[in-house]
């Protein structure tokens, strides 16, 4: 392999390589365990995982718009959502997300659902940790992509039980800020 003296000289990755799932699972479990030692409660733990994901999202947006979209920016709400649902998911998890839906009760809510989220595959939550979901990391990634593209939003991860299935599915709930919807209405 050719050696480069500086990262700036190295060509950008084409994104064809994959990493081993067990390797990733180990690393992610360490991330969770380390953060667990730094916090007092579940909310703080989720915030820390989310922040870790945010940094990934901010970078992946810039990289993918350059590599996969030929230097086009997303300026519309549905455009950026389908970018997250298909392009981002495919690069990070090797497949598009199972579903992207609009919330039925609120106009500003969207949901990305995944039967078996990659980060949750080898994770079971102890009973005493309540509603904690390691998908907070993925929620952070989604928030990183959205906010950096100019779509301020609150993103959270939830378990939703499925009938006849032992494992619940994970839903990433996206609630956009008011100003985003106002701008969307103005753009028509």
């Amino acid at each position, binding site marked *: 392999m050719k050696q480069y003296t500086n990262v700036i*000289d190295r060509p950008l990755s084409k994104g064809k390589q994959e990493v081993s799932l067990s390797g990733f699972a180990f690393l992610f479990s360490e991330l969770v365990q380390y953060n667990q030692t730094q916090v007092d409660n579940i909310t703080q733990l989720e915030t820390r995982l989310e922040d870790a994901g945010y940094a990934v999202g*901010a970078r992946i947006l810039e990289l993918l*718009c350059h590599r996969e979209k030929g230097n*086009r920016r997303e300026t519309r709400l549905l455009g950026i959502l389908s970018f997250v649902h298909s392009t981002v998911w495919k690069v990070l998890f090797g497949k598009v997300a199972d579903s992207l839906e609009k919330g039925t009760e609120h106009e500003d809510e969207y949901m990305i659902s995944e039967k078996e989220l990659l980060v949750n595959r080898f994770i079971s939550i102890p009973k005493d940790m309540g509603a904690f979901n390691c998908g907070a990391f993925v929620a952070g990634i989604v928030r990183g992509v959205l906010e950096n593209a100019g779509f301020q939003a609150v993103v959270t991860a939830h378990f939703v039980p499925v009938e006849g299935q032992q494992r619940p599915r994970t839903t990433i709930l996206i609630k956009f800020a008011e100003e985003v919807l106002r701008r969307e209405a103005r753009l028509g």
Partner: protein
Amino acid sequence: MASTACFMIVSRNDIPIYEAEVGTAPKKEDAAHQHQFILHAALDIVQDLAWTTSAMFLKSIDRFNDLVVSVYVTAGHTRLMLLHDSRNDDGIKSFFQEVHELYIKILLNPLYLPGSRITSSHFDTKVRALARKYL
């Protein structure tokens, strides 16, 4: 190469993270301040224009006497701004695209905090070389 050119990268929080005078004209202290001022004044126009198109290169968006401001907005709303006195849209576009790629490489470094100053001397050398090549 253009006689006057000032290049600046502005983060999404409106903080300049990289600046370079890349023209051939002899450097004057007050001119550099004036260039900064003109570029900052153009930020408002960029904010409005950025939402009307999905293209990253916004071409020339503002002028001051014989100086023109060209802007390139990345996906993460980092703005590459160039103040110049030459008319060479194609060269400027290529310049922006190559600097954008350099910026992505800087950004992908996990130790670089998005929105902080770019201090890499390697980056600086590369940008100046690109300016000589395209502007």
